[in-house]
């Protein structure tokens, strides 16, 4: 089975093969290095004119990528660490996200920003964040959040084909993990339903989508934690949960979430970003507003503790959300069926 990093790399090769308008910009892209996380390996050898290794100038390369997109190209920008998106945020907020609307819908900005978020690599406070939480507050962009069970190649291809500016949020740990895909509607022990359309959500069930106790909504690198929690809940607590892995967090597509909620009545959100002002907040606000009567109790959020992600593994472990946190939250929202 391909690792997630390999799947993304293979997709990039296909995308480059198919569409000459696709360019790649970023730091340290040239072979043999092929990008800090190797996702871009081989591209600069095959398409030297379309792979542009840049100086360490994040703000400028965001703007250059926007200029390319405004003039007919479909550039991909690799930002080495998601933490550095902050350096380009003016270009994102006051340019990329606004051009189409403020120019009266007469331009499009079809670019993709690929960047790895997440911790667990011991890189320390400035290299371990999950800052997609800041991006969902920016109208005019799309934020795609593949997990290791998504069709990574298809999603990246969709992102490049998208006329809206897309942030394609990858995860550092995910790169090295196998890109497990549903087969015959299952992934391992769990039934897995894949939604329709672009950037679909994946919904997992331990009991064939029968009535369950709670829905765990997550995305990206946190999916394995959610799935491990779901398994532990079944085995050790006889609590059945569904897990929804969102393929896109902006715009937020609630349909799969509400669909699962209809079978469970309880919701727990799980994200690797810090709690306050995170993705779970928007999710909880939307769900309680749109499906109040479907909720047996409040939506609970599990996330990284507000603060820094420390370097020392012992401290990092404590700050980040783990299986036990999810289990505790699910147990807390109460159970309908088992337990």
């Amino acid at each position, binding site marked *: 089975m391909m690792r997630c990093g390999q799947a993304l790399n293979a997709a990039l090769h296909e995308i480059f093969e198919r569409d000459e308008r696709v*360019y790649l910009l970023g730091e340290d892209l040239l072979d043999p290095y092929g990008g800090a996380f190797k996702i871009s390996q081989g591209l600069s050898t095959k398409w030297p*004119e379309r792979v*542009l290794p*840049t*100086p360490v*100038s994040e*703000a*400028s*390369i*965001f*703007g*250059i*990528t*926007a*200029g*390319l*997109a*405004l*003039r*007919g*190209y479909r*550039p991909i920008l690799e930002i080495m660490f998601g933490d550095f998106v902050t350096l380009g945020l*003016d*270009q994102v907020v*006051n*340019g990329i996200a*606004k*051009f189409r*609307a*403020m*120019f*009266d819908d*007469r*331009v499009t900005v079809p670019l993709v920003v690929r960047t790895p978020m997440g911790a667990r690599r011991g890189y320390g406070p400035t290299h371990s964040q999950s800052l997609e939480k800041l991006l969902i507050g920016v109208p005019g962009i799309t934020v795609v959040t593949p997990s290791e069970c998504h069709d990574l190649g298809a999603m990246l291809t969709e992102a490049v084909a998208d006329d809206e500016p897309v942030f394609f949020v990858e995860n550092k740990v995910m790169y090295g993990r196998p890109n497990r895909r549903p087969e015959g509607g299952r992934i391992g022990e769990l039934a897995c339903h894949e939604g329709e359309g672009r950037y679909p959500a994946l919904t997992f069930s331990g009991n064939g989508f029968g009535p369950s106790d709670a829905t765990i909504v997550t995305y990206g690198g946190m999916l394995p934690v959610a799935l491990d929690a779901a398994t532990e809940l079944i085995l050790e607590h006889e609590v059945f949960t569904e897990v929804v892995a969102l393929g896109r967090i902006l715009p937020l597509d609630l349909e799969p979430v509400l669909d699962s909620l209809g079978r469970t009545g309880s919701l727990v959100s799980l994200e690797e970003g810090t709690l306050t002002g995170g993705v779970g907040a928007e999710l909880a606000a939307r769900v309680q507003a749109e499906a109040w009567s479907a909720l047996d109790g409040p939506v609970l959020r599990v996330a990284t503790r507000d603060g820094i992600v420390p370097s020392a593994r012992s401290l990092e472990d404590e700050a980040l959300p783990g299986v036990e946190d999810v289990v505790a939250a699910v147990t807390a929202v109460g159970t309908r069926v088992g337990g």
Partner: protein
Amino acid sequence: MGRQEQAGTAPSRAGTDERALYERMALIRRFEETLLELFAAGELHGTTHTCIGQEADAVGVISCLEPERDVVVSNHRCHGHYLAFTDDVDGLLREVMGRVGGVCGGKGGSQHLFAGNFYSNGVLGSTVPVAAGMALAEREKGSGAVATVFVGDGTLGQGVVYESLNIASLWRLPLLVVVEHNGYAQSTPSTLQLAGDVESRARAFGVATSRHDTTDVLEVQAAAREAVEHVRSTGTPYFLVLDTYRFSPHSKGDDFRDPEEIAARRLRDPLTVAAGLLGDDERDEITEAVERRVADAVQEALGAPFAATEAAAR
């Protein structure tokens, strides 16, 4: 002076070019004056940054560009650039007035314009990498286009300008950066904003540069022609510094500059200088024409409804 005398002897020695340049400058001047009048009259909401006194930059530089091929990226002080590039008085006026028919449907307003190959944005400096990216796009297309970005001297405070000069130089991008050096950023004189030497800043990144202290549109045009020629022929960037001055306040509001300083600069008013190329009748004729054109546009705009809301659109 020499010109004045000659102008006296011959009723008009102006080639169509001089006439066209003057006409364009006069139009911009009248347009900007009109905006300030409309503000005073309470007919305008929001803000505007007029380029009164700087018309020779917009007109001189853009006279060297090809609107159907070349790209222009401008800033908050963009009306002159826009009119010189598009001649679209109605679209701009209505955009600023928030009336139906504005070039961006009233969404962008005074400093966020788009039409054809023209773009502007209001965050200083942010436009330079975008223009560099457009230059890259045109280079890759082989269109032979030049991407020109207008910035002010105060905008040289933004680091992204240097990031972009470095990349434009490394990547050989057909990018023309025009610095309209009017000596101020809003209320702050350049002496409190700029250390060292402006041209050297471009040279340090291997970017060709020149600086010109003139309000003569023909001299600006000559300098710009050379710069555009450089970019088009070598495919490498150029940093063109134009010393200029704005007679009008930064935006609508207060202006604390020394009135004598302004008066002294008015002696070098680019319109007066350019008028010297024309006969008096010719000049008056043009003045009347642009006044009529702008006045008519205002009349029609005032009669137009406010920009249609989505609700109304439904």
